[in-house]
């Protein structure tokens, strides 16, 4: 059994506490926004300079001056505020955001994150805000598939891809299970119906 991407986004949304300030990384993590209960009054930050971001803009609401970090048109909520990128990254780096949800190529059992560079010799390096997001929020959660298309585990003993941040991730959400990572190593928080043996087989890790 496993959750599809949308169900996983819903699960993450459900784990975000009332009133939290949250940054959702480019890609799959943006799906989490669609599942946030408005009654929970979660405030979304986008690092290009807006706190209080609303849903994607469509039709006449599209405004070229109002985009998210993925450069997609978005909207603003009442009570929003705009600021420069120096102020926006000061907000991130200064530890003011509660949670940041990011995609990843690999996460290590001690919480190292690799999500900016495949390490391929001909790749053009492009980091954007990835390294700032990795180390800025009070909690950094990763949303990813547990394995690559080739079946290799993305939750690893030690990242083989270039790191984005060291010992920065605390939780890893995959369709197969939810993991805690960090100084104490890896622990399964929720098997999502998988057995521990299945997860051990998929990851090659000692899990408990």
């Amino acid at each position, binding site marked *: 059994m496993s959750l599809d991407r949308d169900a996983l986004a819903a699960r993450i949304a459900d784990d975000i506490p009332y009133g939290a300030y949250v940054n959702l990384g480019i890609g799959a993590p943006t799906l989490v926004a669609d599942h946030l209960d408005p009654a929970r009054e979660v405030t979304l930050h*986008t690092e290009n300079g807006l706190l209080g971001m609303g849903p994607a803009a469509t039709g006449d609401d599209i405004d*070229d001056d109002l*985009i998210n970090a993925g450069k997609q048109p978005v909207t603003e909520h009442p009570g929003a505020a705009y600021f*420069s990128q*120096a102020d926006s990254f000061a907000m991130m780096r200064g530890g003011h955001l509660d949670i940041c949800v990011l995609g990843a190529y690999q996460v290590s059992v001690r919480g190292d994150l690799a999500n900016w560079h495949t390490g391929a010799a001909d790749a053009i390096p*492009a*980091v*954007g805000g990835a*390294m*700032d997001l990795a180390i800025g929020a009070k909690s950094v959660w990763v949303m990813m598939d547990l394995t690559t298309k080739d079946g290799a585990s993305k939750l690893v003993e030690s990242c083989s891809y270039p790191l984005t941040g060291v010992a920065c991730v605390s939780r890893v959400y995959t369709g197969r299970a939810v993991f805690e990572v960090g100084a104490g190593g890896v622990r399964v928080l929720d098997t999502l119906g998988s057995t521990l043996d299945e997860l051990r087989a998929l990851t090659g890790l000692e899990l408990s």
Partner: protein
Amino acid sequence: MRTKIVSGLAAAVDGIADGSTVLIGGFGLAGQPLSLIDALLEQGASGLVVVSNNAGNADFGIARLLAAGRVRTVICSFPRQSDSYVFDELYRAGKVELEVVPQGTLAERIRAGGAGIGGFFTPTGYGTLLAEGKETREIDGRGYVFEKPIRGDVALIGAYRGDRLGNLVYRKTSRNFNPMMATAATLTIASVREIAEVGELDPEAVVTPGIHVDRVVAA
């Protein structure tokens, strides 16, 4: 009467020298001063070092400067985009140098350049490829990387409204890198969508005070 407003884009970019470091505002298209970049292309300066968040989109803006061979080096956080084919090709051909800087570090380095700070320690990038060769320091148990200020000979700013004193306001997320870049260049040139009368901009809401701006052009 004193005015920083210049008539026309040619006057706005007049005198930019070959080899200049040019800070260019914008995040993607939002706040990117396209008309000033086009004017710079027309003006002809070459051997430029461009500091911007991205390295050009499709065939306009920074991508036009690149395509014309005017850019020696790009300092940016995110060159690779779905439509950054001009940069990609030049880079792979070894025709443009690239320095990749984490986005928040880029913003902070430019702020430091405008604020007279000689350098600072940031936790961003510690333990990664982008910290290789850089001074690091452990402060209160956390690892930090030493980063230096960035200053430009010229800054090209995309603002919303500006007055003859050079005061500027921006619109929504087009603010992005523009306010720091305006402070960090010897010659700061702002394109605005609308010229405001002096006193029209709320003094509490001016984001870039006129002292930081040398030329304003409506474009």
